[in-house]
């Protein structure tokens, strides 16, 4: 599995709008974060409460939330039992932030590719020559 912390590090590297991000599970337990543990736990608790309360409003299956305040926005994206919360500055490009967050969630959940075994060099048969084409085809 791609290290969740690696996925978050890549996320903050590719997105100039995302200030911090916290990956957490359905119980609110922090899996990885770009901020210190104690603060990450507070973010996860608030983001989970926000998602729970917001889920009661529409009646449908809530997958993502953007809460815009005067001095910044909080984004929360849910994918199964895993959630990611991210803070941005005011008036971010929501579509881009959601895209980056979903990519990070997928990367954190994706099984890591196994390292390929070194391919054995094929022994060249000795004394064989490539048949020349007659050139009249």
């Amino acid at each position, binding site marked *: 599995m791609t290290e969740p912390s690696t996925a978050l590090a890549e996320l903050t590297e590719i997105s100039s709008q995302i200030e911090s991000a916290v990956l957490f599970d359905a119980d609110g337990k922090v899996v990885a974060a770009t901020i210190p543990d104690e603060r990450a736990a507070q973010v996860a608790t608030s983001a989970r409460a926000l998602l729970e309360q917001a889920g009661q409003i529409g009646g*449908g*299956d809530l*997958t993502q*939330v953007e*809460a815009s305040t*005067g001095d910044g*926005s*909080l984004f929360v994206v849910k994918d199964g039992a895993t959630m990611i919360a991210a803070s941005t500055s005011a008036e971010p490009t929501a579509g881009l932030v959601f895209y980056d967050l979903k990519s990070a969630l997928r990367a954190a959940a994706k099984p890591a590719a196994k390292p390929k075994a070194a391919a054995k060099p094929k022994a060249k048969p000795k004394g064989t020559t490539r048949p020349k084409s007659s050139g009249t085809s």
Partner: protein
Amino acid sequence: MGRRKLLALGFAVGSLLGIGLYARRGKSSERVDLYFADGSLVSLHSDSPEAAPLLVHARDALRAART
């Protein structure tokens, strides 16, 4: 002299009006957008009663993320 005073007064009134409009704009930009799996979107503005508790959680999370 009278004209200068009038200009200064106009400038002061204009500045106050600008500050008021800017503050109003900032407040109105507070909202919560909810996206559902079926592609629907519910946008709650800060003056709606449903948005208030959600914005409290959002502010708490932002404060924790930044301090």
